[in-house]
């Protein structure tokens, strides 16, 4: 039961954008990280995070990743 006034609960919205984004914020940005490799890809682009030894530059800028991710969402 909601204790909030004047809010729009997720039930009332068919578009669950906010729900997906909140979920993404949790699963992508937080959580236990095993030192070493976490391998994730966005569309056809390889994204590899190599723990604390990363000092080399990126091929794709953050803007490119952002653009591709918006296309997925």
């Amino acid at each position: 039961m909601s204790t909030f006034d004047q809010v729009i609960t997720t039930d009332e919205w068919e578009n669950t954008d906010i729900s997906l984004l909140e979920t993404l914020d949790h699963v992508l940005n937080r959580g236990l990280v095993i030192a070493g490799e976490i391998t994730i890809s966005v569309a056809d682009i390889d994204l590899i995070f190599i723990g604390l030894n990363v000092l080399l530059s990126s091929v794709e800028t953050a803007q490119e990743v952002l653009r591709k991710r918006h296309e997925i969402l």
Partner: protein
Amino acid sequence: MVFSPENPLSAEPDIETSHVEEFVEQLRCVTDTLPARINIDAQSVEQGLAKLVLTLIEFIRRLLEKQAVRRMEGGDLSPEQIEELGLALMKLEAKLNELKSQFGLTDEDLNLDLGPIGRLI
């Protein structure tokens, strides 16, 4: 609401806001923090080096700016000194911007955060 097997937590987390569209817009940015691809070819090593060097210079430049403003506020600089200091920093900023654009780097690429030092100076 007491946690018990007869009264479990809801199947999905509740998400409540009076401003859905605003948060959708903001959260799209927040979830885009994946680190970008690592590549060990010559060109990107060069760009990586440039990024490192420019980040360092940019860091120092911003500290200098803060210090200059602090001195200006402190009142121990003459108007002429303020003007000279300002002109010098202006040129430095312009030069840095030139270098950044030569290497195709934006402020976001340099990912600058002065941290606690920024607040002390």
